[in-house]
């Protein structure tokens, strides 16, 4: 083994391939590789949260014209480290009458569930936990299972407010799973594969440009799934106590936050993978392929001085953190929605819209391929334009329907004096009865 070669392989992210070449197939070595990979990814996820929290506080502070954390360390850089130290040293209190196993297992499970999904996120060509042929489906399965943790936490606390908070949380997460699943089917359909790596490779044009409606629906449901503003009414720190984790203290409480940040970052990563082309540069590559330079081949080990993988990782990180920035931006901008608005938005707007998008994309794609329009050199362009136009038409139609509905509601309310219309709103809210609270 040459130490220089090993270093070179490390820099090129090809250490495993290099060792495999050197020693041939070996079961124990593969197991060691898996272990190292798992440790690397989960350590990355846990440590990056320190930065994410700090970044979020800085950005929110700038949006609200404040300074933000600036005391601990240079520019307040060690603020989260200090916060974590505080959480770690606090006492873990288990309330009397709590269902102990459920109470303790819930935060552990929720962190596990938020870490396990990273296995299918492609960081760079060849740099992925495991390229499952059902990658996206695996993510959906695990994230639906993580709902259970909230129920565990709410029930285990032996506190009716915690239980009610858990019911609210489950109602929100289960409902927003529906548009999320349906909108994720669209890119799967376009890429003809559920594997995340193939979805990245299938994007000659980024799917955000092909099916923007599906991307936006996914983004909104991702906001709701991770419980972030404007859908943070599971927690609503300025209104109700704290939702399902009222009783938690110390690091057990910190774990819920950890899981929230990790899964938000994962959602950004998934959005970047599925809709923005992941580690690839779809549009730029397309333009470059018309020039003499040719497209950038991240996957080719001989191109880019062998640095294809690290560069692809940089591209992916830029997209992932860019998406994350939009999450923060929305948090700093939008007010919280009411619970009935949250459910109405889902069931009366997002679910029908995503179904329409899915139907139209499926039928249009079938027509394009059976007429031969989507094959040949200009096939991709025609396909992209056709889907884009159909998406825009659907969007305009939806907006027209929504506008008419709003106009009718306004006309109904116009005859009622102002004070009474507020009472009508109150009555509207009462008509929504939360499940299980009677």
């Amino acid at each position, binding site marked *: 083994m040459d130490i220089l070669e090993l270093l070179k392989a490390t820099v090129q992210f090809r250490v495993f391939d290099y060792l495999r070449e050197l020693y041939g197939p070996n079961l124990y070595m593969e197991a060691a590789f898996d272990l190292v990979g798992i440790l690397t990814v989960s350590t990355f996820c846990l440590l990056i949260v320190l930065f994410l929290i700090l970044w979020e506080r800085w950005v929110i502070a700038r949006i609200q014209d404040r300074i933000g954390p600036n005391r601990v360390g240079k520019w307040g850089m060690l603020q989260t480290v200090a916060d974590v130290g505080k959480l770690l040293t606090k006492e873990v209190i288990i309330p009397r*009458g709590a269902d102990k*196993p459920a109470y303790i297992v819930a935060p552990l499970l929720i962190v596990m569930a938020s870490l396990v999904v990273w296995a299918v996120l492609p960081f760079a060509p060849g740099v992925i936990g495991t390229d499952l042929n059902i990658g996206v489906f695996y993510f*959906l*399965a695990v994230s639906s*299972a993580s709902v*259970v943790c909230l*129920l565990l936490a709410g*029930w285990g606390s032996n506190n*009716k407010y915690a239980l009610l908070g858990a019911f609210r949380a*489950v109602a929100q997460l289960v409902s927003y799973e529906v548009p999320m699943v349906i909108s994720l089917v669209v890119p799967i359909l376009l890429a003809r594969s559920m594997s995340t790596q193939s979805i990245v490779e299938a994007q000659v044009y980024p799917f955000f440009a092909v099916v923007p409606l599906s991307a936006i629906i996914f983004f909104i449901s991702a906001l709701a799934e991770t419980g972030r503003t404007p859908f943070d009414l599971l927690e609503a720190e300025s209104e109700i106590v704290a939702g399902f984790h009222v009783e938690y203290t110390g690091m057990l409480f910190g774990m819920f936050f950890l899981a929230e940040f990790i899964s938000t970052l994962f959602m950004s990563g998934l959005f970047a993978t599925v809709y923005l082309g992941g580690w690839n540069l779809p549009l730029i590559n397309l333009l470059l392929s018309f020039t003499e330079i040719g497209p950038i081949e991240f996957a080719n080990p001989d191109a880019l001085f062998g640095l294809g993988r690290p560069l692809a990782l940089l591209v992916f990180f830029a997209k992932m953190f860019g998406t994350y920035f939009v999450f923060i931006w929305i948090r700093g901008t939008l007010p919280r929605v009411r619970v009935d608005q949250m459910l109405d938005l889902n069931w009366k707007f997002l679910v029908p819209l995503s179904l329409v998008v899915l139907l139209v994309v499926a039928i249009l794609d079938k027509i394009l391929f059976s007429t031969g329009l989507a094959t040949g050199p200009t096939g991709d362009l025609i396909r992209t334009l056709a889907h884009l136009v159909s998406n825009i038409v659907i969007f305009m139609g939806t907006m027209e329907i929504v506008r008419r509905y709003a106009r009718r509601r306004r006309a109904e309310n116009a005859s009622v004096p102002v004070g009474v219309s507020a009472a009508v709103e109150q009555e509207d809210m009462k008509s929504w009865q939360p499940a299980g609270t009677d």
Partner: protein
Amino acid sequence: MYIEQFVFFILALITLLSGWFVVTDRNLFHAALAMMLTFLGVAGLYVLLDSGFLAATQLLVYIGAISILIIFAIMMTRRLMKTTEPAYNSMWQGALLISVFSGAGLVYVIVQVFGMSNYLQKPDTSDAVLNGTVVTLGEWLVSADHLVIPFEVASVLLLAALIGSIVIARAEK
């Protein structure tokens, strides 16, 4: 290959032990949690049988949906945190006898029929074929030669169940 057997034993142990808790635990909430563990064990067995797709489906449908439904039902039909009533009805001894004997009979039949010679190991199917199962399955579900009618009937069944359960469970005003 001993690793595979070891994994199988662990998974079978998890499945059966938590299954035992499902039917014996007096605290229904704990029984529901044990049931999730059983589902997880079964999902593991699916992975061992080279069907990751079914394992993910198991996770999505059983743990993500059915278990949550059941937990909701448990929470809505009992006073919270009260577990004083007995778990079994009056004929539990008879039930135990019946299930032990018929279970033993079934195991005896299985050992007689399959234990000695048949199917001692999985056929060597290539990974490409196994990974292609999902693709073929997708085609079969919508192709008129194969499964499109059961598929449509299943969706009608789900719709009927959806509407039916809302109608049944809705409080009368």
